[in-house]
């Protein structure tokens, strides 16, 4: 069985600016991870169900539109409901400073703002993804 870390990259909400999501998907794949990109306009329900089906260790959300305080709590709630508490959720995008402690409080530790080096994201995921057995 593959020991590769499995990552679902998702673009929730109505925004279509997918440059970041696509670049990070490719960088994680090049770093040896198994990457599933959901495509655009996914609801929290669709994202969590993709994570379940794909046996994901990590969910990466790309959010630039300012809707993060609606989308993230819902994703975390659904993960808990499905017993996927150990799936690590990371966010990349435009997140105002004031929201970061609130997101941390929901259990989202990896929040990557514009200009973050790819390697930092790769290292974070390698260090925080649940152990595969």
């Amino acid at each position, binding site marked *: 069985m593959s020991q590769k870390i499995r990552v679902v990259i998702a673009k929730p909400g109505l925004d279509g600016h997918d440059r970041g999501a696509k670049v990070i998907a490719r960088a994680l794949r090049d770093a040896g991870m198994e990457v599933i990109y959901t*495509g655009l306009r996914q609801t929290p329900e669709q994202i969590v169900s993709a994570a379940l089906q794909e046996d994901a260790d990590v969910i990466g959300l790309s959010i630039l539109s300012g809707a993060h305080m609606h989308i993230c709590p819902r994703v975390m709630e659904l993960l808990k409901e499905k017993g996927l508490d150990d799936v690590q959720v990371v966010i990349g995008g435009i997140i105002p400073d004031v929201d970061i402690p609130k997101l941390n409080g929901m259990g989202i530790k990896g929040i990557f703002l514009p200009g973050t080096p790819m390697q930092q994201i790769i290292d974070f995921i390698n260090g925080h993804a649940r152990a595969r057995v």
Partner: protein
Amino acid sequence: MKSVIDRAATRKARWEREVLEPALKKSPERKGPFTTISGRPIERLYTSDDVEGIDYDRDVANPGEFPYTRGIHPSGYRGKLWTMRQFAGFGTPEETNQRYKDLIAAGGTGLSVAFDLPTLMGRDPDHPLSLGEVGKCGVSIVSLQDMERLFDGIPLDDPKITTSMTINSPAPMIFAMYLVVAERHGADWKKISGTIQNDILKEFIAQKEYIFPPRQSMRLITDIFAFCSNEVPKWNTISVSGYHIREAGSTSLQELAFTLRDGLEYVQYGVDAGLDVDDFVPRISFFFNSHSDFFEEIAKYRAARKLWAEAMKNRFGAKSPRSWQLRFHTQTAGVSLTAQQPYNNVVRTALQALAAVLGGTNSLHTNSLDEALALPTKEAATIALRTQQIIAHESGVANIVDPLGGSYFVEKLTRDMEEGTLKYWETIDRMGGMVEAIERGYPQKEVAEASYQFQQAVERREKVIVGVNDFVQTDEKPIEILYIDESTAARQLERLADLKRSRDNDQVRRTLDALKAGARGTANTMPLLLDCVRAYATVGEMCDALREVWGEYEEVPII
């Protein structure tokens, strides 16, 4: 000819041997690579031999003369400065209306509406996908009532303040709302001017705010061409946009080539719909990015004018000089702005704006210093406008037409951009056109690849971004940003509920049914949409009616 080139080559060889090499021995060049931000290799020196094949009268020509490489106006900015058109929109229509009045008071000379994501995607605020998005990235427009609030107290028939609206899939619905507001202000449709972006092809390529499949989307656009040539003859029916293609990660050349090829596609569809080229092409305008590589951008604008003029004349047989003349708006590159050390963004924006002006832009938006963090504050938006005013009134560059014309480097780079574009056009023509190329994912793949290559170059620090991968500062103080709360969503939801109670819902149903019937057939959709708007149908309802007939487009994601 050959002997001239030989002589030039000998001249350069002698210089390299006698002057350059000894100098390099003493002090070698920096490591490089010496490439543009798009990865194009740049030589250390350009001389007259680099422009040997360029004929001034045929390829460059004086401003106001075909092929307009040096500009479409004989007197450049000595007659009229470019339009200072700042893109703005957030929250409720009332809040945005106030921002417009502030911008006009600060000396802005055009308005540009930014809509929120639900409006851009044709969804009402009560749709589940609108959750958390209402009023966030732009202003929320639901029905004619909101459009009336947005333009309250703003004269729509004043030729000095025209409005541009960044709307694509729901462009016909929003345009219909604008026309009804104009009608109620007593403005004559024959006299009003303004712009709708209405460029769906770049949505499929880059920004992804599409609703309907490509061919039905193209029909909505040709309906607008036909409607406007009779009813609203001064309206700019489309703003063919490279901006978003560039922001999605394309090179400068790809931006140029794909955007102009999109333009050719619209012209072809218009011709196929039975329109006369010289009737609708003069109302087509363009919208380019101004990124950080100064000369490459200037060359891009110069090449764009030449390529368009020649394509209109030779490919489509356009007879009117107004069809040949490419007019364009420019926005500085949002993607180049950094969240780190945000005040540096003022400098980036100033340089990019200067490139746009030296390239002869007809209108310009300058980004605000805080846009990597949020929508701009009023203070940041004012500095952005002031940047344009300083270029216009202090730098002296607006005194002369195309000051870089004749530069060996700029002329060579202009020629290279032109040749590169023609190669891309050949590939796309072979696929059957841009719609077909998009259906095969061709431009999407090209852009994704370029964007990844650039990111890799940044990671390797071959491309330096000040404050991000070099010259990093760890003791930064946060700046104040605009935070949009949830009150807009609550207010817009309440208004939507009120509207549905107070309007004549039977009339709404009748007009929407007529729209669906028209969409199934070949009727022009614009008059049908005007009826829907007058009955206070919402953007979401009108788009849903067409979704029911045409379905929704879903892309196969390309990484």
